[in-house]
C-alpha cells in the first residue's frame, strides 16, 4: 500500500539554489537562497526577480491561505513562522484560484511534504504560479527591521546591492494605489460551495434558515472562504466585478450587498467608495477589511497607513457591545481613523493592542463592517457570528 502522506511530492528545482537577497528601500539587505519561480536570464546577469511591499505575517499555520489571499497582491510576504511548506499545497485551502503575492520570504522552506491532502510541494506551486521566493532568510531580523522602520518597498534578486536597493526605492509605494483591478473577477458569477465539512455547526445554521437571502458580493479581491461562509449561512451568492455600478448591482435584486476585502490603499479606490455611497440605505451592507474601509470612507471617515500593519491570526479584538474578546485573523496595512468617524457611525469593535478601529455599524443604513477577517482561513473561528448578523439583517431581523 502506498501511503499518500509518505510520498515525497517535491520535484527537482528548475535551477540550482541561488544565493540572493531581499533588499529594502532603506538600503537594508537580508541574504538567503532564491527559489520558486525565477527568471533564469536575470539570475545569470543579476537583477530583480520581483518587487513588492515587504510585510510580515505572524500566523503559524495557513501559509497556503496567505499565498492565495488576494489582499497580499503586490506584497513580498515574510512568514515569521520558521518551518513553512511542511504540509505542501492542496486543493482545499485556496483563497483564490491563483497566488497574488509578489514574493515569499521564509526561514526554512520544507524539504519534505507530509500531508494526506497535499497534491504538490510549496516549491512546485510557487514555480507554477510564477512567484519568486527566498529561503534561509533571518526572518526575525527582517521582521524586527520592518517593525522598527515600517513596511516598505523591497525587491528579491541577485547581483549588485545598490542596483537592487535603487529598484526598491523606485517602486511605487502602497499609498495611493488602487490594486483592486488586478485581483477582481472579470465576470459576474454565482458561488454555491460551502466549507465542506471543515466548519463546526454548519448543518445547524442551515437548518435555521428559512428563505435564501440573495447576496451580491462586490469582489475587490475576495477570499473565497467569505463566499463559502455566506453559503454556509444559507445565502445565494452572486459575485460581481469591483467596477460594477450600483445600478447594475441593484438590478440583481439583492437582499444585501457584501463589500469584500482586497489589496492596496482604500482611499485610492474612489469608484468603489462611490458605489458604496450609492448603495447606502438601499439594502443591508456588510464589509470586511477593504470593504470595511470603503464603507467608512463612504460614510465620510478617513483612512491612513499603519506603520507595519496587522497581519496574523492571533489579533485580539473586543466586541464593544458584549465585551467579549475575539481572537481574529487580520491582514491590513491601512486603518480607519477613529476620530474621523462621523456621528451616526458606532465603533463596534476595537483592537485590544493599539485601540484601532476594528469594526463599525451604521444602523441608519443597516450597514456594518469589520476590519478583520471573520471568515478566518487562516485563523480562529471566533467571529463567525457576523455572517449570521448579516443574514438576520437581510431577512428582516434588525442589526444589533
Amino acid at each position, binding site marked *: 500500500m502506498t*501511503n*499518500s*502522506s*509518505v510520498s515525497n511530492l517535491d520535484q527537482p528545482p528548475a535551477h540550482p539554489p541561488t544565493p540572493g*537577497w531581499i533588499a529594502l528601500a532603506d*538600503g*537594508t*539587505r*537580508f*541574504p*538567503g537562497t532564491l527559489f520558486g519561480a525565477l527568471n533564469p536570464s536575470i539570475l545569470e546577469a543579476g537583477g530583480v526577480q520581483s518587487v513588492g511591499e515587504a510585510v*510580515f505575517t*505572524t*500566523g*503559524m*499555520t*495557513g501559509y*497556503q491561505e496567505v499565498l492565495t489571499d488576494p489582499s497580499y497582491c503586490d506584497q513580498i510576504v515574510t512568514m*515569521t*513562522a*520558521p*518551518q513553512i511548506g511542511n*504540509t505542501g499545497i492542496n486543493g482545499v*485551502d485556496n483563497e483564490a484560484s491563483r497566488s497574488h503575492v509578489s514574493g515569499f520570504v521564509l526561514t*526554512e*522552506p520544507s*524539504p*519534505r511534504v*507530509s*500531508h*494526506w*491532502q497535499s497534491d504538490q510541494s510549496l516549491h512546485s506551486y510557487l514555480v507554477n504560479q510564477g512567484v519568486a521566493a527566498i*529561503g*534561509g*532568510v*533571518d526572518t*526575525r*531580523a527582517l*521582521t*524586527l527591521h520592518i*517593525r522598527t522602520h515600517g513596511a516598505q518597498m523591497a525587491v528579491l534578486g541577485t547581483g549588485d*546591492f545598490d542596483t537592487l536597493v535603487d529598484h526598491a526605492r523606485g517602486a511605487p509605494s502602497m499609498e495611493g494605489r488602487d490594486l483592486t483591478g488586478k485581483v477582481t473577477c472579470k465576470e459576474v458569477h454565482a458561488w454555491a460551495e460551502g466549507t465542506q465539512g*471543515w466548519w*463546526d455547526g454548519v448543518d445547524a445554521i442551515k437548518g435555521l434558515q428559512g428563505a435564501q437571502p440573495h447576496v451580491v458580493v462586490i469582489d475587490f479581491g475576495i477570499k473565497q472562504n467569505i463566499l463559502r461562509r455566506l453559503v454556509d449561512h444559507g445565502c445565494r451568492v452572486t459575485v460581481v466585478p469591483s467596477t460594477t455600478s450600483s445600478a447594475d448591482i441593484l438590478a440583481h435584486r439583492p437582499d444585501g450587498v457584501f463589500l469584500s476585502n482586497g489589496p492596496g490603499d482604500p482611499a485610492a479606490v474612489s469608484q468603489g467608495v462611490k458605489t458604496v455611497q450609492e448603495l447606502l440605505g438601499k439594502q443591508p451592507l456588510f464589509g470586511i477589511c477593504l470593504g470595511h474601509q470603503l464603507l467608512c470612507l463612504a460614510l465620510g471617515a478617513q483612512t491612513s497607513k499603519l506603520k507595519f500593519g496587522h497581519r*496574523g*491570526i*492571533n*489579533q*485580539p479584538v473586543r466586541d464593544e457591545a458584549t*465585551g*467579549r*474578546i475575539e*481572537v481574529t485573523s487580520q491582514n491590513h496595512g491601512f486603518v480607519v481613523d477613529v476620530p474621523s468617524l462621523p456621528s451616526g457611525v458606532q465603533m463596534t469593535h476595537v483592537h*485590544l*493592542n493599539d485601540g484601532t478601529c476594528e469594526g463599525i455599524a451604521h444602523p441608519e443604513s443597516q450597514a456594518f463592517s469589520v476590519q478583520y477577517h471573520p471568515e478566518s*482561513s*487562516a*485563523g*480562529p473561528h*471566533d467571529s463567525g457570528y457576523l455572517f449570521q448578523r448579516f443574514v438576520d439583517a437581510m431577512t428582516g431581523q434588525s442589526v444589533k
Partner: protein
Amino acid sequence: MPRRTDLKSILLLGSGPIVIGQACEFDYSGTQGAKALRQEGYRVILVNSNPATIMTDPEFADRTYVEPLTPEVVEQILRREKPDAVLPTLGGQTALNLALEMESRGVLAELGIELLGARVDTIHKAEDRELFKALVEKLGLRCPRARTARTLEEAHEALKEVGFPVILRPSFTMGGSGGGVVYNREDFDSAILWAFQQSPTHECLVEESVLGWKEYELEVIRDSADNFSVICTIENIDPMGVHTGDSVTVAPAMTLTDKEYQRLRDASRRIITEVGVETGGANIQFGVNPDNGDFVVIEMNPRVSRSSALASKATGYPIAKIAAKLAVGYTLDELRNDMTGTSAAFEPTIDYVVVKAPRFAFEKFPGADPRLTTQMKSVGEAMSIGRTFSEAFQKAMRSLEIGRDGLDSLLDRVDYPRLAQQLRLKSVGTDESSPLSEIPLLATRPGTPGSVSAADPRAPGIHAKEISPDQVHPHQGVPLGELRRAIADIIQTPLAERLFYLADGFRVGLGIEEVHDRTKIDPWFLHHLRSIALKTNRGPTAEHNPQGETLFYKVDTCAGEFEAKTNYFYSTRSRGGTLGGPAAGNPVSEATVADDKPVMILGGGPNRIGQGIEFDYCCVHAAFACRELNIPSVMVNCNPETVSTDFDTSDRLYFEPLTFEDVMNIVAVEQPRGVIVQLGGQTPLKLAVQLAEAGVPILGTPADAIDRAEDRERFDALLEKLKLKRPPGNTATSVEQALQVTKDLGFPVVVRPSYVLGGRAMEIVHSGDDLMRFIQAAFDAVRGAASQTILVDRFLQDAIEVDVDCVCDGKQVVIGAIMQHIEEAGVHSGDSSLVLPAHTLSESLLDEIRESTRAMALELGVVGLMNVQYAVQGDDVYVIEVNPRASRTVPFVAKATGFPLARIAAKVMMGHSLESLGYTKEIIPTHVAVKESVFPFHKFAGVDTLLGPEMRSTGEVMGIDQNFPRAFMKAQLAASTALPEKGTVLLSVRDGDKPSICKVAQRLQEAGFSLVATRGTADALRQASIEVDVVNRVNEGRPHIVDMLRNDEIHMVINTTEGARAIEDSKSLRRQTLLSGVPYFTTAAAAEAAAQAMQEAQKGPIQVRSLQEFAATAG
C-alpha cells in the same frame, strides 16, 4: 470583571513530592500563583509537603504549611485557617483530588469555602472517563471507541463495535502488562484470554487502536466571560501509544494545515466550555489520523499541567500566573502581557521551534520494562529553542546531558541483532522477569566521550545505494541487510533510545518510508532526523553564516510583532542578521553586550535521579540574592519545569544547554563578573575547571578546591593533614587489583566507580559470591570514562550516617545543620530519611563533627556551601564524602531552620562576609524535622524495592513537629506511607538485625499490634519473650507471607535482608507488599523509628503548624 473583593484569604494546594508524572512544574505554577495572589493583596495560605520547593519558602505566603497532603491534614488546616477560598488547579492531580475529597466530606460547604479555578462538577466531568466520553460525544466529537469485557462473548461483542486493530488493556495491571495490540481475529481469542488472566478482576478494556495516529496537545485558557485562547499547540514526535511525558514533543505543531488545526481549536473550545473550566488553564489531547485528518479526543486536564509549564516556557506566556488572576475574577482583557505590555487576551505566536525531550533512568531500575507505553516512565525533561526544528532538536539532545551532541551513532555500543532478538522474545510472554532488563538499553555510560559518527571511516558510508547488504558491519558483526532488518524490527517498539536507533537505521541504509512504516513517526520529522543523522542537514542558511556565529534572540510571545521589555533569550547559529555595507548593519543579536557585570547562575539541567528540584531551588535563591544586592543576574538553564526558567526570576534568562560551549557563548555576550557553579548540582560543577581555565571568574569556592575534594589522592592527603579518618580502602584499575584490595580489607566492602552520581553501580558486598559480579559492574560503569578506576572501601557496618551542610566565607564557617540519617550506612544518602537536629548523637560527637567540618571547609578554601557526609561507628567519626557545593538537603535545612542557606551562600560568593550578613551561628531548632524520600517503584513493575547504595528516589517530603516520632509519622504520611493504627505486623529480618528488632517488636506489641514473623525472626523474638506467630516464607509451603499479604492480613512489613541470594528470595515479598499498598521498612533503623511513631500516634492525632509559627518559636 475586576478582582474580587469578597475574598480575603485563599488557600493554595501544592502537589507534594516530586514523582514521575508530577515534578517541579507544580512548584513553578504554585510559586507563580502565590506571587500573583499576594500581588493582588490576598492573604495566601499554602500547603505542600515538599520542602525543596520555592513555593514553600515562607516569604511566598502568609501561612506556609509543610504538612502531609492527606485529606485529614488538609481538613485540619482548613478548619484552622478558615480561608474564603481554595485554589486547587495549580497543584496537579494531587491538589485536584484533595479538593474533591474536601467537597465530598462536606468541609467546604460547612466552612463556607469556595473552590476557585474549577468547580467540583467540572473536575468530575473532565476526570471521570465515562462522563467525559459522554460529554465529548454530546458535542458531536468522539473518543476512541472502547468497551469493557469480562467474557469471551463480551469481548466478541466489543470487537464488533471497535474493529481491528484493537488494543487490549487488562484492568488493574501495573504498567499495562498483559495488554497489547491485536491485528486479526486469528490472534484475538488467545490474546484476550491471556489478558483476562493477567487482570486481577478478570476484566479487559477492548479499545479502538489509534496507535500510530499523530498526537497533539492544546494548552488553552478561558475566563469567566467566555474568552478563550490557545496558548500553545504541541505535537508529539512519537505517535499515539507513548505517554506525552515520555515523547519528544515539538511546538508549534508542524504537520497540520490551518483547517485541521482550527478544527482542534474549535473542539477544545467546545470541550472546555462544556466541561465548565471558567477561570484558568486546561489541556486537551487529540489523536489525528494521518491518512484522512479524522481526530479523536484522548483526554483533558482541567488544570495547569506539566504541558502548561512547557507551553509557558515555550511561548513566554505565564499560564499559571494568568490562571491565578482569572480565578480571582479578572477577565483576560483586563490583564497585560508581561513581555510586551499588550493585551493578555491573545494567542502567542512564535518564530522559532521548541523541542522537549524526556530523560529516563532505566539504568537505576534493573528489571523494569523499558518499553514506553501510556504510563509515564521518564524522570525529567529538557527543552530547547532553535530557529529550526533541526537546530532545536540537536540542542535538546545536548541539553539532556546523556553524553550526546545530537543524534550520535550507537553502532559501536548497542548490539542491535541481540536487542532485536530480545524484543522478539519479549513480545511473546509478558512476565515480570523481562530479558530486556539484561541489556543496556540506555547505552550511555557516564563520561563516554563522542562516539563513532557517520564520518568515522570504520562506519559504513551514508549513501544507502553504495552499501551492499552483504557487507559486514565492523561493529555489529552481521551483514548490513540483517542489521537493517534488526533495527527495523527494534524501532517498532517505543523505547527510550528509539530515535537514536532509527538514526542508526538511516546510517546503515534504512529508508524514510520503511522507518515510517515501523514507527508511524511522521515522515516530516523522519526527513529531518535522517538529515541530522547523515549530517546532510545543510539548510540554505549555512553558506551565509559560515562562521556559525552564535546569536541570541528573544522569546517574546509575538514573533517580533511587538518589542519585548523582558530578557528571555535563546541562541541560534542558523543565520544572522543582515549582510552588506555599513548601511546594512552586522548580524543582529538581541542580547546586546552588557556592561552591567552581572552574576551568571548555571542551573541544573533536566531533572534526574540524584539531581532534581533541590538544585533549582538553590539557583533561584542565588537570583534572589542578586536582586537583594542590586546585582544584575543571568540564569542559564534548560529545564522547562522549573522556577529558575521563569523569565522574571532573574534579570536575564538564557534557555540553553549547559555544555561548556553553550555557556561560553553566553559568557562572551554577558561578560559576567563571575559565574556561580556550585548551586546547580553536578551539571555546572563539572564545568568549573574548564570555565576557570578559559579565564571565566568562578564565584565562590575555586575550581581547584572542587578537584581537591573529588580526587581521591588529593583528598586523602587533605584528611591526613587534618588528622581526620576515612573508611580504609583503595583504588583499583583491574579486577585482580580489586580482589586484592578486598582481601586486604575483609568483608563487607563497598565497590563503586570512581566517578559516581547518585550511587550509580555502587554495591555493598558481603561475600565472595557476589564480589566478581559487582566489581565487573563497576568497571562496566566506568568504561569509556576518563578514569577507568573503581574504589573498594571497607563498609562500616551499622554505622550512623550524618549529613552536614555549612556555609563558609573563607574565614568563618557556620554550620547550617547536622542531620542524622535514620537508615544505617549503606543506603544512599539521597534515599535515606534524615532527622534534624541529630537525635541520638552525643554532644561530644556532634562537636567533633562540627570541628571536622570547619577544618575541612577552611582548608579547602570554601567560599559558599559545603556538604560533608560522615559515618559514625561507635565513637569513631569517619569522613565519607565532601562536596564543596550545594547539596540535596539545602532546601530542607532552610525550611527546618528558617534560614535560607542558599541565599546566604550566594551572597557570600558575591563577596559578603557571614559576619556582615548577620549569619554567624548554627541554628538548632527546638522542633524536629524529618526528611523522607519518595520512590517510583509503582511505575516499574518487577523492580526490587530494597534500598541500597544506588539512589532511586525521585523526591522528598518533610515532616515537622515537636518531637522525633511525630515528625517521622508526618514524614511517612506525606510520603504516602500511612502507618497503621492497629493490626498485624510482619517481621522478617537478617541475623544482624535480630537484636535490634526485638525492641521494635516490643514497642509494636505495647502499641497493641499483633506480630507474625518468619521462622528465624520468630525464634529470636520468642527468646526475648515476645509473642509472635510463625509464617511460612514463600519457599516454605503455603499459606506463606505473600498469601497473607494478598488476603489483607498484614498491615505493615519489616523486612531486612542481605546477600544476593536472600535478597532474590525475598523480592516477591517486597513486590507484593508494594502492590498491596502496605507500609514497609527495609532497614531496622527505619523500623525502630516507625515503631516509635506508632506508639506516639496513640497519644493523639496529627497537629498542624505553619512554618511561620515554627519560626516564631525556633531555637
